[in-house]
């Protein structure tokens, strides 16, 4: 199912863009033709950019009355046949939680962008945070699995937004793009390739005719049902209730097991295919720094400083943050002396690392509540202490 981007949406060339704008460009390149959003700092630039660009590409931007409406309007658009995205931050992300669950339950491929700011509540609207990482994983009620990506530069904001759309189509799951205020507002060079160099995972329409088609029976890869859109004569039924393969509600434990088990397993059993991370100097290292988003760039500087003092330290940076690279971290735990987890919160992904390390090596957290990036000296200090050099 390989395809390339529709050139209509692709702004090929070298640009000087912030992460929010490059996210909008990534969406356009991925074939997104519907964005619904509500203004909220520091994510607003993404919808502003999309709203300015889409009329000459062919598609719609609508500013809805709130984030609840935005997060379900995109799902209506998906069932009309479009690719769709919503964009928000902090409090707006909280309002969207119910509809992340709806998209999971109805297997509606779509993208949610959260440009993280300091919280809780109104918190720090204009300053960065990374404290929505567990909300991304668990924020909607009920049990489910999710995919989330985490860029650390405007270039990656473009690349990973395209990737997010592709993953959402491949697994029929909402995919979250977890930006932070720094990456969102940081201007850097962004290279947008030619359309035929951008790989797109197209929507997988069903091969079944009406009458034979079962909307929630796996058709692809053993896990994923084929899609149809409203208006094609399939008379499909889609519900947020627990449903059978016909899409009909079934209120019993057996159907709950079949329905929700597949939603969880289609991600869990494919986790090793979905995970993505970048490693630096891990071979031969005693210590691995784990960081993501803007924090990874500060942590990188601290790692370099520590290496200049002779510490054998490397770095693991997940770019797909959910599912987390469990297999890799478990394996590294047996070889390393310590993990140093750096994040702009008081410990979220840290607890995943601690769980996966399972006592085989030390785990250290360098965390704070957001508002500014880390001081590299503070990270360095923890690396040095973990190495027994301070």
């Amino acid at each position, binding site marked *: 199912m390989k395809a390339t981007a529709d050139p209509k949406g692709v702004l090929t060339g070298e640009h000087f863009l912030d992460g929010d704008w490059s996210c909008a460009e990534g969406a356009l390149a991925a074939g997104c033709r519907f964005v619904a959003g509500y203004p909220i700092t520091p994510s607003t630039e993404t919808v502003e950019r999309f709203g300015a660009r889409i*009329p000459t590409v062919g598609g719609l931007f609508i500013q809805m009355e709130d984030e609840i*409406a935005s997060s379900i309007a995109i799902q209506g658009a998906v069932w009309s046949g479009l690719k769709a995205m919503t964009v928000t931050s902090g409090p707006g992300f909280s309002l969207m939680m119910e509809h992340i669950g709806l998209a999971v339950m109805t297997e509606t491929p779509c993208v949610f962008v959260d440009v993280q700011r300091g919280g809780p509540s109104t918190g720090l609207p204009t300053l960065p945070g990374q404290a929505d990482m567990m909300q991304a994983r668990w924020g909607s009620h009920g049990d489910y699995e999710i995919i989330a990506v985490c860029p650390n530069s405007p270039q990656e904001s473009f690349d990973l937004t395209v990737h997010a759309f592709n993953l959402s189509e491949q697994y029929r799951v909402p995919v979250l793009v977890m930006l932070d205020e720094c990456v969102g507002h940081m201007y850097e060079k962004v290279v947008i390739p030619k359309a035929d160099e951008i790989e797109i995972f197209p929507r997988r329409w069903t091969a079944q005719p009406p009458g034979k088609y079962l909307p929630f029976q796996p058709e692809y890869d053993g896990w994923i049902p084929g899609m149809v859109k409203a*208006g094609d004569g399939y008379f499909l039924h889609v519900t*947020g209730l627990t449903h059978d393969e016909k899409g009909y509600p079934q209120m019993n434990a057996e159907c709950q097991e079949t329905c929700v088990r597949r939603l969880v397993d289609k991600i869990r059993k494919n986790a090793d295919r979905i995970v993505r991370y970048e490693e630096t100097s891990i071979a031969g290292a005693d210590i691995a720094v784990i960081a993501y988003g803007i924090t990874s760039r500060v942590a990188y500087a601290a790692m370099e400083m520590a290496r200049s003092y002779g510490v054998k330290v490397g770095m693991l940076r997940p770019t797909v943050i959910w599912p987390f690279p469990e297999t890799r971290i478990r394996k590294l735990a047996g070889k390393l002396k310590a993990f140093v987890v750096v994040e702009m919160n008081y410990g979220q992904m840290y607890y995943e690392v601690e769980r996966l390390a399972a006592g085989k090596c030390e785990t250290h957290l360098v965390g704070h509540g957001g508002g500014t990036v880390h001081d590299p000296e503070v990270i360095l200090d923890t690396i040095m202490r973990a190495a027994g050099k301070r």
Partner: protein
Amino acid sequence: MKATANVKKAAHLAEPLLRMDRLPHIWCPGCGIGATVNCFASALAKCGIPREKIAVVSGIGCTGRVAGYVKLDSFHTTHGRPIPFATGLALGNPELKVVVYSGDGDIVAIGGNHFMHAARRNVSMTVICVNNFIYGMTGGQVAPTTPEEARATTAPYGCYEPPFNLPFLAKSCGAVYVARWTAMHIRHTTNSMVEAINKKGFSFIEIIAPCPTVYSRLNRLGDGLDMLKFYRENSEIRNGAATEDLDITFKGKIICGKFVDREAPTYLDRMNGQLQKVLKDRYVPWGVPSKTGLDRCVS
């Protein structure tokens, strides 16, 4: 039994519209929702739009279950949010006729904000709101439509909040078609549905319906048939009545009729007009008839 054993059961007129494999439905004996669905089936047969081009979106609640029984593309969404879902669906494919079918709690309590804004934008959709004055599925709680003095489980000594006058609300927000009927007005309701479905823009029909299980029982109003008798004796058809005069009281008159039927540019008319005006040839129109059908990109 013997006498009828060889007689093939005649298909009900509504059968082609229903997911017969989902029956029996969950609605209580005497409930008015089924009667409205029957009207809807007749309206679909009469409206002249191919069935595959009509989609139904429901929220949560008793009326929210309509989407699960109609044999159309049907979406059973979250509580209060069928209208924004329908907004995405209708704008995404302007060829579809989107009908939101839900209850009073769903449409004007939790979903009230979306109702206001979809009417203001004049997004093309028909909203059918079955108003039974109460939260039925959760067991009889007070609603923003419960008449003053009427009892509910969360208003055990009688409701003391003034209820919404839905046609007034719809008109004020910009709906281009507004009607109110009761579950007894089968033909009127059907005709209104045909008109609303064929209307360009945001159309709204309120249908007052009995809830014998909770509303009538809590208020000692008898069974479903008693409620229909009450509607017959106490409803009055006043087409074109001023919507501000349509308040509903506990045992007072229910004014029915078609109150609004006006023309106004839809959301897409305005969007295409403004963007074309400013961007000229650079604008790629959306949902505008062209030689190849409607201009619209679908990946």
